């Protein structure tokens, strides 16, 4: 892979923000405290999210791939985001499009797979990774060296879709600092720009997904109150609506629609949609089949059902936030599809105010992601900015009769966790099947199944005696992990949850190895470099913590921590990645109790309405504050 060679080890790594969009993708970074999008050598900022697999093995991404689409409709994947985290039998695969799908063999993961150039088969994760590699190279051209990335995802993406996005980043060799919800990223870009407090709605109609988010901005904290949407609704659907109309007018029946024709008509539909923003009507030419007139009024009739679907999600989000439209401070427009005049009119009517669109709706998400990357990499100036997000869909477990028991309701603040206890249904039952689902419907079959697993080795007991505890945890990326424990015997089983869709860890690792020139040895060098950075970072953080809260140390603790620091520093100078790893873990264990005490202090201070950073600046003042205030917190 030539792209890795651009990497300049002496340059300072710079964090980036990536908007991996349905139609277009782009990358941004923060320069002189302002986010800017990075252009390619042709000065274009938007990279079309289109990938062509040529029969000679070459992979082409972006504008050039778009140009190849008419000639190679089957080998050119556009709007791949709509297929992320989807099963091979997903309804999305049956919509109007030029692709050939491969059905999974028994035992293979249930993931969408495209058949492209010369019998090659690719998954949406691999296609997305190609786009990410190009964006990374574009950033490296500009910044010499790229640090971690914040990658945005639609707020309404479920766990499988988020996981697929993270897998794509891993495959593209990008360190993911955070998966960030697109509307939250847009709000961050606006908030940093305008510095105005209040409740905002973000209406994000992209190429393939729709999100609405209601959030409160106060003193630099962006707190998401509710979110809603549809992960398969966007500008693409407007194109399809036009394409169906054109095909119907031209008298095509489905059987005669070749991949070439479908690709061409979809492309013309998109062009017509863009033209109708400034024109009352357009002529669309289908070579060999005549010319067709499309008026703006007819277009607006065609897309009315799409707008109605967004309206339903908006009304529900307002209700979930406990707000009326009149209470909003502003409405922010995001996504290229919000350029359509009918969309703006609809949004204005829905929220009873003119929406804001002063930051380019195509760029705003990437700009927000760059700001967040800057904050997370610790180079951001503003300590005050914090994004508090939620889960978009309820998480639950299927219980008897196919009914869902909701364990975490939608709009719960993340990170979060919840426990639920279940029991056996039959005498002597030794296994327990658990199905994890995501969605709002009462019946399991109507929701998305995220994972299925069986807990084995339960002692044979009468029905209802064995007790099983299932724990869900959702991290700040919105990603779920599940653990189960049998409580009667106290035997804990950590279960590797096999995802219902997408790839398991081993597959991603194998694909990564295949992408590297020297496989194993490259990977080992990479690991060593990563562990070294990690060791230095943790030793630095430990020294800072020791300096700030020396009064929290117990007798002998300081010596142990300092020794562990010295070991980690020494092994980081060596060449054995597993030694570095082991010493990092030892340092981790040595600081555990100290870290706990530091967090207790931070909590007391937060409850008192004080700020932690103020304490780090004046250690003297902090001394004894825990003892002085602890009783009041009871």
């Amino acid at each position, binding site marked *: 892979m030539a792209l890795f060679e651009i990497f300049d080890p002496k340059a300072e790594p710079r964090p980036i923000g990536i908007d991996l969009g349905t139609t277009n993708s782009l990358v941004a970074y923060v320069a002189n405290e302002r986010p800017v999008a990075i252009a390619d050598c042709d000065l274009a900022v938007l990279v079309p999210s289109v990938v062509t697999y040529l029969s000679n093995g070459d992979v082409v991404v972006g504008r050039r791939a778009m140009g190849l689409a008419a000639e190679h409709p089957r080998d050119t994947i556009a709007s791949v985001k709509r297929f992320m985290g989807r099963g091979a039998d997903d309804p999305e695969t049956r919509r109007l499009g030029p692709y050939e799908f491969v059905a999974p063999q028994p035992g293979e993961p249930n993931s969408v797979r495209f058949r492209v150039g010369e019998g090659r088969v690719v998954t949406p994760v691999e296609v997305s990774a190609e786009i990410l590699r190009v964006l990374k190279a574009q950033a490296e051209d500009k910044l010499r060296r790229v640090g971690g990335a914040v990658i945005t995802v639609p707020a309404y993406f479920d766990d499988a879709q988020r996981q697929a996005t993270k897998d794509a980043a891993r495959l593209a060799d990008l360190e993911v*600092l*955070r998966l960030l919800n697109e509307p939250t990223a847009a709000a961050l870009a606006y908030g940093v720009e305008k510095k105005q407090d209040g409740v905002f709605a973000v209406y994000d109609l992209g190429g393939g997904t729709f999100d609405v988010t209601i959030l409160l901005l*106060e*003193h630099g*904290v962006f*707190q998401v109150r509710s979110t809603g949407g549809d992960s398969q609704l966007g500008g693409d659907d407007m194109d399809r609506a036009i394409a169906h109309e054109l095909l119907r007018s031209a008298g095509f029946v489905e059987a005669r629609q070749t991949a070439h024709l479908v690709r061409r008509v979809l492309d013309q539909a998109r062009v017509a949609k863009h033209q109708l923003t400034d024109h009352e009507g357009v002529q669309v030419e289908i070579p060999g089949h005549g010319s067709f007139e499309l008026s703006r009024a007819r277009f607006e009739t065609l897309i009315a059902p799409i707008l*109605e*679907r967004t*309206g*339903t999600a908006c*009304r*529900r989000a307002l*209700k979930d936030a406990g707000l009326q439209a009149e209470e909003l401070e502003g409405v922010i427009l995001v996504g290229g599809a919000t350029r359509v005049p009918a969309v703006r009119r609809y949004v204005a009517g829905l929220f009873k105010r003119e929406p804001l669109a002063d930051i380019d709706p195509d760029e705003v998400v990437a700009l927000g992601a760059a700001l967040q990357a800057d*904050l*997370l*990499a*610790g180079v951001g100036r503003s300590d005050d900015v*914090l*994004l*508090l997000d939620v889960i978009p869909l309820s998480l639950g477990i299927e219980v008897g009769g196919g009914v869902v028991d909701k364990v975490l*309701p939608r709009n*719960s*603040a*993340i*990170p*979060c*966790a*919840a426990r639920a206890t279940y029991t056996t249904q039959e005498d002597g039952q030794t296994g327990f099947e658990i199905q994890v689902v995501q969605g709002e419907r009462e019946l399991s079959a109507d929701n998305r199944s995220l994972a299925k697993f069986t807990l084995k080795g339960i002692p044979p007991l009468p029905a209802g005696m064995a007790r099983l505890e299932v724990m869900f*945890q959702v*991290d*700040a990326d919105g990603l779920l992990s599940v653990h189960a424990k049998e409580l009667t015997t106290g035997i804990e089983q950590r279960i590797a949850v096999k995802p219902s869709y997408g790839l398991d860890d081993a597959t991603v690792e194998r694909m990564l190895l295949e992408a590297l020139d020297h496989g194993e040895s490259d990977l080992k060098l990479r690991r060593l470099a990563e562990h070294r950075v990690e060791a230095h*970072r*943790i030793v*630095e*953080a*430990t020294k800072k*913590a020791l300096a700030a809260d020396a009064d929290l140390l117990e007798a002998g603790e300081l010596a142990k921590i300092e020794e562990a620091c010295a070991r980690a520093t020494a092994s980081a100078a060596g060449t054995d990645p597993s030694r570095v790893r082991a010493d*990092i873990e030892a*340092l*981790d*264990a040595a*600081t*555990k109790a*100290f*870290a*706990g005490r*530091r*967090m207790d202090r*931070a*909590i007391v*201070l*937060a*409850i008192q*309405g004080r*700020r*932690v950073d103020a304490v780090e600046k004046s250690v003297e003042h902090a001394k004894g504050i825990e003892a002085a205030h602890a009783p*009041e*917190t*009871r």
Partner: protein
Amino acid sequence: MDPFATLGIPRSYEIDLSALEKTHRELSRALHPDRHVGSMASERREALARAIEVNEAWRIVRDPIRRAEALLLLRGVGVGEDREPQAAPEFLMEMLEQREELSRSIAARDPDGVRKLAEAIRARAAEAERELSRGFAKGEASSLLGRLGELRFYRRFLDEVSAAEDERTG
């Protein structure tokens, strides 16, 4: 777990939601993973565990039903529908009638009728919450289970209203 202690507020049914929001925000500032990217690994984990606990406490305390359950548990009273006493037959009859009326209004596509029914139930839920507040302040416990049970019925009723409204506009 005591969600009230986690948030540093008194164990009371009466809460000051806006003050609580501020506390939640300050705790998040101290604990959210984004604030600990450069921290010691042990501290990242400690902060995460506590951030999760704070969010759980916040979820419980904000919700009138979960808040009542938490207070009852802290007073040694078991909660959960299989442990609570059955509602009075008159109440059940009345709820059944209300729900039938709701079904009729939904079937007749009568949004005003649905809204009126929902408003009446919302008023009753607010009254039940006031009763709970008074009861908890007086130190009562198991005698409040009836009110809690009512709140559960009202919530299910209002969920059904929401579903119907989504359906209608969708």
